[in-house]
């Protein structure tokens, strides 16, 4: 790289790092306030028709299956000054990436690859200034120490020889494991191989099918075979390492692009917010119960989409797919979303892995414990207002809510106004809360400790074997950094939203149960893959 190019990169990197840091610093979690009394019905319109300041900002994201709120409700909006600041920063990014990519975007053609030493690469990407800003922001918002952002940590599974068998049962990829037959299990990411999922030139397409065999004596899974673009590879084969990299690239792409952004932000978050606002009046008990978890979602999604999905956005430049390829992935995967992933017990049963037991599925146990607390909360709260199944079946707003959800959600919510019971309603609510809190943490913020170690866990796999260039890595760091912004914690006092004393008690009991689970987990050795209640956020807004 020539001197001018080096200088230009230094300047560009400095500017875009600064922008990421400003975004991080200025991202104040919205205080969850009560919703306003007079509200208009929110219309879900095609995603491409959404306007920001009168401009169809998502017109170049052809994902017809997705819908979004036509207008952001007033009580969901950021305060004016915060909104303007965000508009300036996000608008600037949009302009630079879309209108003037060569000159001003974070990408610069012809850069060398990141340092061969992963820790040096990390230090150059996640600078001391990033860390300082995160600390300052935390101090400003009096964030408790356990929730402070730490530099990415190399998980033991990626230390040395990447251990797909362990990654399949703990950490953010734990939800992919399916039983094939007998003691054979799989990660099936072949859906990413579709012909129109076009990768950037020179990259492998990130799809894979990994077969695992369960070793009952060691109580663990071992990867035995990987199917990728390279063909079928087995341990000891020359391409085994590369195949593992492709498998990790595929699972991480699917997690970041599909499970996190598509299924949580664009689908669950957006649709639950629309349905809840449209169905329930502000004094309705269910509105009060769901409010902390839907609050701010739509406004936040708007900005997130501007930064990540638009042409020249983050996702196009960090993942393997071209913008068109990515849109195809989003379009098709949106239709596949099933609310069942929000229920760890049912999801494990559906994937036919429950019989492996908690010792072999550590993350499963962690998620089930969290879900159980959330489910009890939902059931306890509903029990205050509805004594029988009939009570919920005859409640008109609930009927409306279920109708709208079944219409909006790609595969419905498996509960309809005709079949709803007190239990199924509690479970549905628990699934939603779980998705936007525990699951969101797992497939979003938790990638921080995985995706950054691109030397063993690449986010793009180059056919000529080179490492990703500096600009791609830097953008990956900054995108993930911004996923770590401080949001409203789940363990917080939301009892002010309760319509009466009894409901206040239910909110308090929820908090107490979360704290008890936290204490129980603290008795056990700390582990980087565990989701602790005090790490969780109350909603997905940022």
């Amino acid at each position, binding site marked *: 790289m020539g001197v001018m190019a080096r200088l230009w990169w230094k300047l560009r990197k400095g500017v875009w790092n600064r922008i990421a840091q400003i975004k991080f610093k200025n991202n104040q979690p919205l205080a969850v306030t009560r919703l306003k009394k007079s509200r208009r019905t929110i219309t879900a319109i095609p995603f491409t028709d959404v306007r920001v300041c009168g401009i169809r900002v998502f017109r170049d994201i052809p994902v017809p299956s997705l819908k979004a709120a036509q207008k952001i409700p007033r009580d969901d909006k950021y305060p004016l000054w915060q909104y303007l600041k965000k508009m300036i920063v996000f608008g600037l990014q949009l302009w630079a990436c879309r209108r003037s990519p060569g000159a001003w975007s974070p990408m610069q053609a012809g850069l060398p690859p990141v340092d061969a030493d992963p820790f040096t690469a990390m230090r150059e990407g996640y600078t001391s200034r990033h860390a300082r800003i995160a600390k300052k922001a935390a101090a400003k918002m009096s964030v408790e120490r356990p929730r402070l952002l730490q530099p990415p940590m190399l998980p033991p599974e990626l230390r040395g*020889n990447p251990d797909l*068998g362990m990654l399949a049962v703990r950490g953010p990829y734990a939800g992919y494991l399916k039983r094939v037959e007998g003691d054979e299990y799989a990660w099936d990411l072949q859906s990413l191989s579709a012909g129109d999922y076009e990768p950037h030139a020179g990259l492998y397409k990130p799809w894979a099918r990994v077969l695992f065999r369960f070793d009952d004596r060691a109580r663990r899974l071992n990867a035995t075979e990987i199917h990728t673009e390279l063909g079928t590879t087995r341990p000891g084969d020359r391409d*085994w390492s590369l195949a593992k990299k492709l498998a990790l690239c595929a699972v991480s792409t699917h997690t970041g692009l599909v499970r996190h952004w598509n299924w949580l932000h664009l689908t669950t978050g957006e649709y639950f917010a629309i349905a809840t606002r449209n169905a329930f009046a502000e004094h309705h008990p269910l509105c009060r119960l769901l409010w902390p978890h839907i609050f701010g979602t739509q406004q936040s999604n708007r900005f997130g989409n501007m930064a990540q999905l638009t042409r020249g956005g983050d996702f196009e430049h960090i993942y393997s797919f071209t913008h068109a390829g990515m849109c195809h992935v989003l379009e098709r995967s949106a239709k596949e979303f099933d609310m069942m992933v929000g229920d760890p017990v049912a999801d494990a049963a559906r994937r036919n892995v429950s019989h492996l037991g908690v010792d072999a599925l550590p993350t499963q146990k962690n998620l089930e414990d969290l879900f159980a607390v959330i489910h009890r909360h939902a059931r306890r709260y509903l029990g205050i207002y509805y004594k029988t199944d009939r009570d919920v079946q005859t409640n008109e707003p609930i009927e409306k809510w279920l109708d709208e959800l079944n219409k909006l959600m790609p595969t419905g919510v498996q509960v309809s106004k005709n079949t709803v019971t007190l239990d199924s309603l509690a479970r549905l609510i628990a699934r939603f809360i779980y998705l936007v809190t525990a699951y969101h943490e797992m497939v979003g913020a938790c990638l921080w400790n995985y995706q950054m170690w691109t030397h063993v866990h690449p986010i793009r796999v180059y056919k000529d074997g080179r490492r990703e260039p500096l600009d791609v890595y830097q953008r990956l760091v900054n995108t993930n950094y911004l996923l770590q912004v401080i949001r409203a914690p789940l363990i917080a006092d939301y009892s002010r939203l309760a319509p009466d004393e009894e409901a206040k008690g239910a909110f308090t009991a929820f908090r107490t149960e979360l704290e008890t689970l936290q204490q129980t987990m603290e008795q056990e050795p700390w582990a980087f893959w565990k989701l602790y209640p005090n790490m969780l956020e109350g909603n997905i807004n940022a």
Partner: protein
Amino acid sequence: MRQSHTALRIFAFLFRIVNRVVVWHKIPFIRLLGALNPRVLNLPALRYDLRRWNLHDTVQLPGTPLQNPGPFAEADRSERRADGTHNDLRDPMMGCAGSRFGRNLPLDQAWPEPPDKFLDPSPREVSRILMTRYHFIPATSLNMLAAAWIQFQVHDWFSHKQLAGQKDDEFIKIKLKDGDDWHQDPMKIRQTEPDPTRPRGCTAGPPTFINYETHWWDSSQLYGSSSKIQKLVRSSRGGKLKIENGFLPLMTSIDPETNQPIDPALTGVDLTGFNDNWWVGLSLLHTLFAHEHNAICDRLREEYPAWDDNRLFQTARLINTALMAKIHTVEWTPGILGHPALQIGMNANWWGAFGERIHKLVGRLGESEELWGIPGSPTDHHAAPYYLTEEFVAVYRLHPLIPDDYRFQSLSDPAFSTYKTFTEIQGNGTRQVITEAGGMANALYSFGLAHPGAITLGNFPRFLQKFERIKPLPNGERDIIDLAAVDIVRDRERGVPRYNRFRRMLRMKPVSTFEELNPDWAKPMADLYKNDIERVDSVVGLLAELPPKGFGFSDTAFRIFILMASRRLKSDRFFTSDYRPEVYTKVGLDWVNDNTMTSVLLRHYPALAPALAGIPNAFMPWNNVFEPLRY
């Protein structure tokens, strides 16, 4: 000698003035100047002052004299006694097992905390608020062998005893705060055993405590601090240590004297010189250096076929010990203190200012330790007889180095992987874990790939905050301790000054605000210590202090290190006046000179070669033999 002292005195005087303006590690460093770099030159100047003002003798305090071992025998000239006596031939008890710890501060300042301040703030609260690990903070420039190594060495240097806990008044009791879920209230911590040689009720001077290991750097952790243990670990054949099927024998093996198991309760713990707090890391290093001892015996036997078992053992011990001291000085220390100035400084401690190449080429051309290194220079105890100190013990509280989880990998099978918690890899689980990992080479490899924790606040392993010892208390209760709270209590009961006083004692500028000490932790520290910076415990201050660039620990702790690390060599006859071919043999000195941690590892576990290829220091992270992390 005198010229060298005069030059040092001038250096020390000049740097004292310089350091008033700029602390040593902020003096500009010009790599090209090598050992003539002002920052490097500042180090012996600091050490000169520390030797002059920070060595205090506790033997002068009243007490029953230790049993004199009698006049030295001829063999004492070339052999280390098991109990450390007769190292100094004029003062045979100096540094022996069972003698007192010395001090680095004047004795009138070494009194423990008065009762009304002793538990303020509560050590348990210090542990919970400032120590608890919420996220593992790794030290990415090191591997786990570096963490195990320092404990391996510490077990050579010192060990206090605590009271048995038979009577209620043998415990320090800490009232719990609301919301603390500790299993007993008050929390009970056994007191350190008082010095039995002090007259009862004696108030002439602060309390003293006994080191039950030899103070010398004599590998007593491997060879034992008593002839009884030494007899147990020796095979009595060819000078070798007992090794069975590649491992040390277990503590359940039969004691030939009693015909009974040595300790039937310790089913997974190795038989070695000192095996308290046993875990995989210690087992690996004890086994490795037992093998090394035996390899040295083989080499000596080749050269001196007429030597008997004892001569082979004693000479091999000297050589093995010197090799470990060298590894510690020129590999481990520059590894953890990753700064070029220290690289040069520590090398100079061993090889002298001209470096290894010149030293090997021309040998030793003078007595100066600065120019030609400490080994082979004249013995000197400086201001006080040689004893390790309570302050030295305090700065070696490095528990954050220990991670909570461990992954074991195989050198030959890419699919092999097991995960363990620390609880599973310690105590009686130790041997089984190494066996399950596929043996020593795999376990060493796994440690070579893993990172220890960074030495900082908020990184204390959780399991050590609720750690259960193998053996219960005499009353049958489970012996569960919060080691972080114990660390605080120990310093307070042994009169180790609080952090700012600790710094003053070392002539360092005290910190004036919590922000200055550590901005990230200022608020919780200020809350806990009620805004009184003078109350900050030394353990807390040492962990909170932001270390110099590249350093793995604080500058304050470093001052004790440079004083005591050199002293361990300089006071020991076997590293100084008797570090010569007549005592070590030519073969022995060559062995020490030519070997490193890497060569030791590869000699006994050649399968590690690809993991260590191109790694400049065996305490740095190793290569993944299947999929290079660097590519």
